[in-house]
């Protein structure tokens, strides 16, 4: 059941005012966010003004887009003209977006209400949202635990019902893993499906914007709203916007599912494994067939990612030099001092570590051994998926090896944190679409995510299968509806 659709119907039938809806959400934010800390900024006046205007138009009986009046959160690395874009970094603490991201433009033109900007790991580098320079977001399911990252703020905002849906960005799992940790749905579209114009770049060949929602239907609605060719992004595909919601139906009939056993091995928590297998068996009882197979190249995926992503990031973040915008360190005598100190003081530890790694692997003498080799392995990963999809209609894995871990538990161990991205990273490497949907939680009630992966541009197949699982699933812990 689509929450967006339910709300949209209520607006049209006069059962609910937009201003009341927005008011209620702002109230939830006011009471809960001091604990959860999902939002970095909230534009409440703007939201209420927009809500009042929409109420007039609904009253008049004007035809309205489906997203009209739907409260949505936007990750703080996606521009909305005139509002803060901090990327959770001191470097951009006072930065105002000078233009709309293409996705924001789409949502605004469909009268969605963009309530505020959500917290994240600084410059999207991290898997827990603990690397935000400003605040640490908590998992609404258990506030001693992380919401996941880097789109932790968006995931928490949706899970805590501060918004109906949110946009995040996913480079190595940053939409899917927080969705899994918070017990909601997270979709990473095919690379090129959604324009990156206005998304502050982390790793250009891997980044994609996608929705975080409570239901598969809502993810489909948002994908349809934000996807499509954009002349401002050379890497955006020429496909027109998707029409997934219109064609959505629960369907797994006759599908063969492949499960790479490298992603169901000893590094995966037993509870996670059990939940995933239960879900697979359930799908098998309803028309699908699943089997395990080997994708040995997956063992090199983390290394490949942690060479390519930092390399691109080291270059993408070079523009943060204190010259034209952002933090400028005071009292520097020379340009070099000014640039070096602005970056040194404006950027956080995790960001600096990755820039250093990225600079290292691109530097002369190391380019061939690291960067070039990583690109070759990446091609091997893509090829491996391609071969697998000749046999399987979908590939399914756990989204993450564990449930949400405790705040501060990975503090001294960046490598350990990196290794936990093993299931999500290969998807970005190959540019494929993937969705994380909740399956049975662990015995203590912590959410577990099931990841479905489809061939490029097969989001319809992906969403249909996900919808079937959702329909069957008894694992969805639906918080009280706020309607």
């Amino acid at each position, binding site marked *: 059941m689509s929450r967006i659709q339910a709300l949209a119907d209520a607006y049209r039938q006069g059962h609910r005012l937009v201003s009341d809806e927005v008011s209620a959400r702002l109230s939830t934010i006011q009471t809960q966010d001091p604990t959860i800390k999902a939002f970095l900024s909230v534009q409440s006046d703007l939201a209420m003004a927009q809500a009042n205007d929409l109420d007039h138009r609904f009253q008049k009986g004007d035809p309205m887009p489906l997203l009209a009046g739907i409260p949505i959160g936007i990750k703080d690395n996606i521009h909305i003209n005139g509002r803060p874009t901090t990327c959770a970094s001191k470097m951009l603490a006072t930065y105002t977006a000078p233009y709309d991201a293409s996705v924001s433009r789409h949502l605004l033109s469909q009268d969605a209400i963009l309530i505020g900007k959500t917290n994240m790991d600084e410059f999207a580098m991290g898997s827990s949202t603990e690397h935000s320079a400003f605040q640490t977001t908590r998992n609404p399911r258990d506030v001693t635990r992380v919401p996941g990252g880097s789109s932790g703020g968006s995931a928490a905002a949706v899970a805590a019902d501060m918004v109906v849906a949110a946009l995040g960005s996913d480079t190595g799992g940053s939409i899917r893993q927080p969705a899994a940790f918070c017990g909601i749905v997270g979709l990473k579209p095919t690379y090129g499906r959604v324009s990156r114009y206005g998304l502050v770049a982390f790793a250009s060949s891997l980044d994609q914007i996608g929705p975080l929602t409570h239901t598969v239907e809502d993810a489909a609605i948002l994908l349809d709203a934000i996807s499509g060719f954009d002349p401002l992004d050379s890497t955006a595909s020429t496909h027109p916007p998707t029409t997934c919601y219109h064609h959505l139906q629960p369907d797994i009939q006759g599908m063969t599912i492949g499960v790479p056993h490298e992603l169901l091995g000893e590094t995966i928590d037993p509870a996670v494994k059990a939940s995933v297998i239960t879900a697979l068996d359930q799908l098998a009882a309803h028309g699908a067939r699943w089997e395990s197979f080997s994708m040995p190249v997956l063992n090199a995926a983390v290394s490949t990612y942690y060479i390519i992503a930092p390399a691109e990031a080291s270059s993408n973040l070079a523009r943060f030099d204190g010259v*034209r915008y952002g933090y400028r360190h005071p009292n520097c005598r020379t340009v070099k001092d000014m640039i070096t100190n602005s970056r040194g003081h404006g950027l956080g530890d995790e960001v600096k570590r990755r820039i250093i790694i990225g600079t290292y692997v691109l530097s002369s003498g190391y380019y061939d051994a690291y960067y070039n080799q990583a690109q070759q392995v990446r091609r091997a990963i893509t090829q491996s998926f391609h071969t697998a999809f000749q046999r399987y209609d979908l590939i399914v894995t756990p989204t993450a090896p564990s449930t949400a871990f405790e705040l501060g538990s990975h503090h001294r161990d960046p490598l350990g944190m990196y290794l936990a991205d093993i299931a999500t990273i290969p998807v970005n490497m190959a540019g494929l679409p993937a969705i994380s949907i909740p399956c049975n939680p662990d015995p203590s009630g912590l959410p577990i995510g099931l990841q479905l992966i489809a061939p490029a541009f097969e989001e319809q197949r992906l969403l249909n299968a996900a919808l079937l699982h959702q329909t069957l699933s008894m694992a969805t812990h639906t918080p009280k509806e706020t309607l």
Partner: protein
Amino acid sequence: MVLTPHELQHIAQLAHLSLSPDEINTYLPQIESILSHMNDLQQVDVPSQGASDGLPSAILRDDEPLAHPDFSPQSQAPQWEGGFVVPRLS
């Protein structure tokens, strides 16, 4: 494979990142462990595939002006005198 503090400083210089002695001490072992983990990449068999096989081609834009009347380079400049002010070069 060992990364010396000197090498780390050199990379930080290339990347124009000022690092305090504390940061060097903290980052060094972390980065070393990450880099040595990556050595497993050398073992992977890679297909001999042409780099440009099946790649989409560049999008080309017509040579037409696109104005940005609302864009103000001045508005976020840390220091401005008709242009972005920066300290002396050396």
